[in-house]
């Protein structure tokens, strides 16, 4: 009995000692504002889990430059106003060294002025090209842009000699932005847009729009820009009406859920997507294969959920940041920023990143893979030579 007490006392003492030393050792604070709840939660939730998982892993190995990382996460609930409030709190109260996250484009754009003013390196996880164009000194991002998705689709169209297309787009921010980008880059690939339709993000029937596309003369392929349930319904209605020309979806629906929802109608649909989705199917010669396979295994093991590209963006953001800190040998904001900008040949889940003072994204079209849905699963389409 008495011995047990002594053991317990020693145990408590040791743990107190650890706690004390834990507090004494300097910490590097990394901030994150993510849409963990709300309409964009399917983006923010895997991002949060990924950040927590890998910050723990890094700390278990002794942290960065001998300093443990401390992650401060706030949930903006999908509201850009909240994001801005939390950004200010991260700067003024938490005094973070660097920032990863900003789930949505709206939240990111709202937070940019805060971090630009405070001169804190900010790696966004949101899609739109406006975040890094024009280049802002302190702002970087990891996800590929919708313009790149358009270019990937058009390269594939060109490869198949399909040059006259129709676009059907969702009227939500994602669908609209990608539609605009597609229309902007279409001439570069010799693609002409013969017909255009839109649908509301919550619409449940797109047969009228698709009937018009079906009747439009000369359409050789249809591109649907949108995410959420809209593209699944477009795909179902597309088959319902018996339209036979190829259908392209965007990277916005690159998840298994899309195949589940669209069912048999999804057969033959093509879409650009990150390598992460087809991790196990990549050829062994692919430089990204070890990274994406490892990340998806670890994520699945820890969370029991299937990987999404969004968590991958968070992984890339954290790795780019911590590697820059290692190269800078400190958490000094200006030095870390310079090192992030010098990131070269970082192989991440989103692609191979080569940043420069004029490119704060650093990905090229090879980051996207063209996929085709066959037998209810993804298959890699041989590269069209973008």
């Amino acid at each position, binding site marked *: 009995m008495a011995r047990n007490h002594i053991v317990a006392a020693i145990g408590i003492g040791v743990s107190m000692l650890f706690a004390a030393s834990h507090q004494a050792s300097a910490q590097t604070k990394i901030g994150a504002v993510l849409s963990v709840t709300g309409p964009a939660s399917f983006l923010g939730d895997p991002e949060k889990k990924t950040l927590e998982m890998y910050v723990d892993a890094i700390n278990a190995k002794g942290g960065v430059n001998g300093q443990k990382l401390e992650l401060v996460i706030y949930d903006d609930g999908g509201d850009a106003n909240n994001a801005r409030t939390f950004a200010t709190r991260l700067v003024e109260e938490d005094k973070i060294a660097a920032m990863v996250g900003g789930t949505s484009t709206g939240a990111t754009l709202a937070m940019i002025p805060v971090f630009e003013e405070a001169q804190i390196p900010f790696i966004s996880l949101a899609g739109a090209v406006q975040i890094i164009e024009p280049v802002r000194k302190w702002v970087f991002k990891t996800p590929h842009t919708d313009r790149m998705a358009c270019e990937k689709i058009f390269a594939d169209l060109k490869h198949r000699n399909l040059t006259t297309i129709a676009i059907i787009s969702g009227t939500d921010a994602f669908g609209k932005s990608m539609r605009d980008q597609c229309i902007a880059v279409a001439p570069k690939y010799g693609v002409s847009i013969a017909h255009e339709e839109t649908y509301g993000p919550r619409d449940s029937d797109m*047969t*009228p729009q698709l009937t018009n596309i079906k009747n439009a003369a000369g359409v050789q392929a249809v591109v649907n820009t949108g995410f959420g349930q809209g593209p699944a319904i477009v795909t*179902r209605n597309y088959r319902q009406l018996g339209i036979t020309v190829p259908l392209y979806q965007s990277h916005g629906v690159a998840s298994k859920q899309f195949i589940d929802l669209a069912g048999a109608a999804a057969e033959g649909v093509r879409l650009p997507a990150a390598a992460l989705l087809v991790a196990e199917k990549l050829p062994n010669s692919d430089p990204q294969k070890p990274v994406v396979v490892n990340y998806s295994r670890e994520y699945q093991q820890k969370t029991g959920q299937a990987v999404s590209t969004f968590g991958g963006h968070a992984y890339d953001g954290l790795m780019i940041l911590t590697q820059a800190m290692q190269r800078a040998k400190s958490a000094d904001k200006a030095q870390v920023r310079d090192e992030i900008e010098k990131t070269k040949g970082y192989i991440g889940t989103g692609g191979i990143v080569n940043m420069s003072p004029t490119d704060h994204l650093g990905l090229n079209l090879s980051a996207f893979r063209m996929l085709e849905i066959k037998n209810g699963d993804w298959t890699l389409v041989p590269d069209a030579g973008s």
Partner: protein
Amino acid sequence: MAEFLQFAFSGLTVGAVYALVALGFTLIYNASGVVNFAQGEFVMLGGMSTVFLALAGMPLPFAALIAVVVAVAIGLVLHRFAIEPARGAGPVTLIMITIGASIFLRGAAQIVFDKRFHSLPPLFGADPIRFGGAAILPQSLVVLAGAVVVVTLLWAVIDRTLLGKAVIATAANRLAARLVGINTRRIVDFSFAVSAAIGAIAGILVTPITLTSYDVGTLLALKGFAGAMLGGMGSAFGAVVGGLLLGLLEAFSAGYISSNYKDAVAFLVILAVLFMMPQGLLGRAQVERV
């Protein structure tokens, strides 16, 4: 002609759902004077509960039945614990309560179910029926048939039974109904339960076509409310007509005018109608006795 048929069927399918939601609005409005903005959540509950019960291994018809029971139970709870205690409050307060309830139900659904989209297998397969150049999903016909059955049953109950007479009496004058011995609280309970059931049935029937998620209710409530207003708030027949009309308007303006403006066109027509006939297409004019 083929397009016309295609648009018409698209409009009728979507309109049938709006009609059922509008019917739910009307029932509760008639019995209690409350505009229940949580009506869309009943549709969500029907669809989502069925999906998750089916995922848990329950046979589909049984899952659908339980889902309706769940929705009815929640409808009753909504009435007893949210609406009834505030019975003396003004209409704006009551509307706020129902909006609050709808936000609560959405939030709860996010936790109890999940935040993803879900689908159900269609009753008669997914192969479209070709008819006059148009392609119609068998499930669309199921939705339409379901709407007809629900409306007919409701009419039979309201028009042919003592219970129905009590509902009409309560709707006409609550105090007078109470004076002749009608338990008006029970009657309002009944109308909440039936509204919830109708919403849930609509949710189950359309999920194979429109998919469902925790937040499908908001838009449906808005469209259903617009349908009910168009048809004339308080008229069951008007609700059905208004809902169908709204669906058709959307489909035809998307098809013939522009998909960019389809919602605008639909709402413009509603505005125009209400401007000329403030009581709606089939609503009774309100006579205020001074």
